[in-house]
């Protein structure tokens, strides 16, 4: 039964963690896609920027968390979200808006966002270096061990404090987004603009204000996703494209322009990744005695090695583009 606990720790918990992070990232990408109709390649670097802001603030005020009873990084998150949102709006004003004003094709916006991605990447690594750094500076990562009340189980289910925070924050973000999109006038206007931009304009909706709000939300969510990722493991400034692919895959799987789809897609991609790198031999080993003699179980029975993890979102992307390019929830943009 210990094997089952191993499975829960390595697939269920890890998959939910990765899935949440991808989901929050993908929501941002999908919102940008639905309002401005281009794939935002700088999103992963925006996430990294958000995490960097948390790191900087935590380094500057390492003791704040102790006073509140939360990790300092989490206390600093709202401020980092605001800063990242500000950056996102600034980038839009400085780089994307002039391109939009020229009426360029979406693909030119994509290239522009790649340029922005490189600028952010360069700046971040110039100042923060390329080393991984922990967001836990003055405190320790707490680890919860849940013992299961079965005799055959000796190992506990392990959940860390940042993972608990991550689940709570993800839930809060999803509910908050849901309420925003369905209950507020601005949220509805955002959905209207994603449905039919011309009619939105003809209804007197101020579309450039909607664009700004989209960037604020996308930037804030990017900061959340980047921080959660860094809390779970460490702040890694060089992920960029390795983060971008699963996030795009998630957004496309969920149907581009479809926020709930992006959340579902995030979990699909997250779980697919953890399932693919999981060593299935561990689960099969207890059953070894029931196998015929000629069937010898190899030591490593994972679908892909961790070094090939990026193949998984790519494979999902290719599969969805071949069979259902509109995504599982039928997105608006093909």
């Amino acid at each position, binding site marked *: 039964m210990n094997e089952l606990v191993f499975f829960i720790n390595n697939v269920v918990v890890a998959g939910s963690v990765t899935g949440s992070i991808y989901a929050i990232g993908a929501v941002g990408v999908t919102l940008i896609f639905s309002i401005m109709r*281009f*794939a935002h*390649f700088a999103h992963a670097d925006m996430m990294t920027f958000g995490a960097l802001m948390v790191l900087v603030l935590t380094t500057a005020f390492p003791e704040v968390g102790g006073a509140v009873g939360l990790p300092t990084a989490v206390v600093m998150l709202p401020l980092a979200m605001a800063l990242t949102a500000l950056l996102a709006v600034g980038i839009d004003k400085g*780089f994307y808006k*002039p*391109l939009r004003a*020229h009426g*360029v*094709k*979406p*693909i*030119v916006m*994509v*290239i*522009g966002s*790649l*340029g*922005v*991605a*490189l*600028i*952010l*990447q*360069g*700046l971040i*690594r*110039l100042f923060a*270096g*390329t080393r991984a750094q922990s967001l836990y500076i003055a405190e320790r990562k707490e680890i919860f061990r849940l013992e299961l009340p079965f005799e055959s189980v000796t190992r506990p289910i392990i959940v860390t404090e940042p993972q608990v925070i991550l689940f709570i924050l993800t839930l809060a973000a999803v509910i908050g987004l849901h309420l925003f999109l369905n209950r507020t006038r601005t949220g509805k206007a955002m959905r209207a603009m994603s449905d039919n931009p011309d009619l939105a304009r003809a209804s007197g909706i101020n579309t450039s204000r909607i664009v700004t709000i989209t960037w604020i939300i996308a930037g804030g969510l990017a900061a959340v996703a980047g921080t959660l990722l860094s809390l779970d493991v460490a702040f890694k400034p060089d992920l960029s*494209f*390795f983060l*971008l*692919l699963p996030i*795009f895959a998630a957004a*496309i799987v969920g149907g581009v322009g479809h926020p709930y789809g992006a959340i579902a897609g995030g979990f699909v991609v997250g779980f697919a990744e953890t399932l693919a790198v999981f060593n*299935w031999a561990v689960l099969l080993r207890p059953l070894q005695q029931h196998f015929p003699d000629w069937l010898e179980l*190899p030591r*490593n*029975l994972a*679908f892909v*090695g961790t*070094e*090939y993890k*990026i*193949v998984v*979102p*790519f494979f999902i*992307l*290719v599969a969805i*583009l*071949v069979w259902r*390019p509109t995504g599982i929830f039928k997105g608006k*943009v*093909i």
Partner: protein
Amino acid sequence: MNKPATAEQPSRFPLRELSLCLALAAAILAVYAIMGGAYSTRMLVEAACYAILALGLTIQWGYAGQFNAGVMGFVALGGVCAMTFSVPVNEAFWASELPFELGRVLLYALAAIVLVWGATRLDRLGVPKTLRTLIAVVLALLLYLVVISLLRGVTDEIESRVGFIGGLGLPTGVGWVVGGALAGGVGYFIGHICLGLRSDYLAIATLGIAEIIKAFLKNSDWLTRGTATVSPLPWPTPGPGELGFVMARSIYLVVTALIIAVIFFLLHRAYNAAWGRTIRAIRDNEISSAAMGKDVNRRRLQIFVLGCILMGIGGAALTSFNSIFDPQGYLPLNHTFLVLVMVILGGPGNNLGTIIGAVLVYLIWIMSEPLALYLMQLASSLGEGLGWVDPADMQSRALQARVLVIGLLITLVLRFAPKGLLPEKVKHHG
């Protein structure tokens, strides 16, 4: 409302082209004078290889409006072919039973593919479609696990006993041609999936495949020695050992220049022929061209594959010239974004502009390396005075500064000079 897209501008004296060429020549001469012949010729050969890559990208982006964000992957494919075909045969590998084992696994893989393909046809035997899909998926997963475990066994054996499978000891040119073909094949696969969809998806998919190709080459020690790198790689021309650096590199330069000339000539003819007109009509007016029928997607695929082939050849030539195959040396910055800057700065869709852009940008790129290092040193000495702790990795910071500059260049050119130094000489409509 559709004016013909091909109305040429009245022929005029190519003042702009000429002055750009002259300026470029002056810059090159200056580099020769300062840095010496061996260094400068090396730079020119590399610039020529980049020009081949840039031509590949300019026909995808400039002719057809397809954005390939994974040039690096196709470069690496060309590189690995150049390496595998030209490096001497590994006798230890071929003397063992390992080639046979490897062949057996590949045969199993083939059999597995046939089985899965068969399973997808089960519905013709009356199996319900959902059940068929379920059977096919489960079967594919199981067979994949079997084959991959067998393959892991064999490749581990190869790595521990003979290092890697070695090369084929064939002439370098064969590797270049195969490299182009392989890159074209991968391009066909990607293009086939993405070209009917939004152009963004092609960018995402190419970005992904490039990272995957790199991860594969880096981790497949049995095939490429991975991080241990393979060197030296033979040249198609006499090496520096026989003729000295300047002479040997000059001959290499002649070879690459010839390749460019051939590509340039063929592209020029194709561009002005019916084929090129159709391609541009598709780019400029996708919707009305779609009304012409399904031909559109085939044309788009053709041009994408053609671009990938050029990237494969250019990558092979570049890797052979560097004489070392190091999978970690393929970087998105150096092999994707640098090429992108060359194309958008030179003039997308203008072959001459692209070549000039390639040489010019590469020249600046190479010259900026010492400059970036110097600036970083200056910044850090200033930083020490201000109490900014200076991390030891100056080299990597200098690299980041260049990432920043390339990013800035891309955004600025797109905004202020979207047509490049030499705009495409086609009258656009609409």
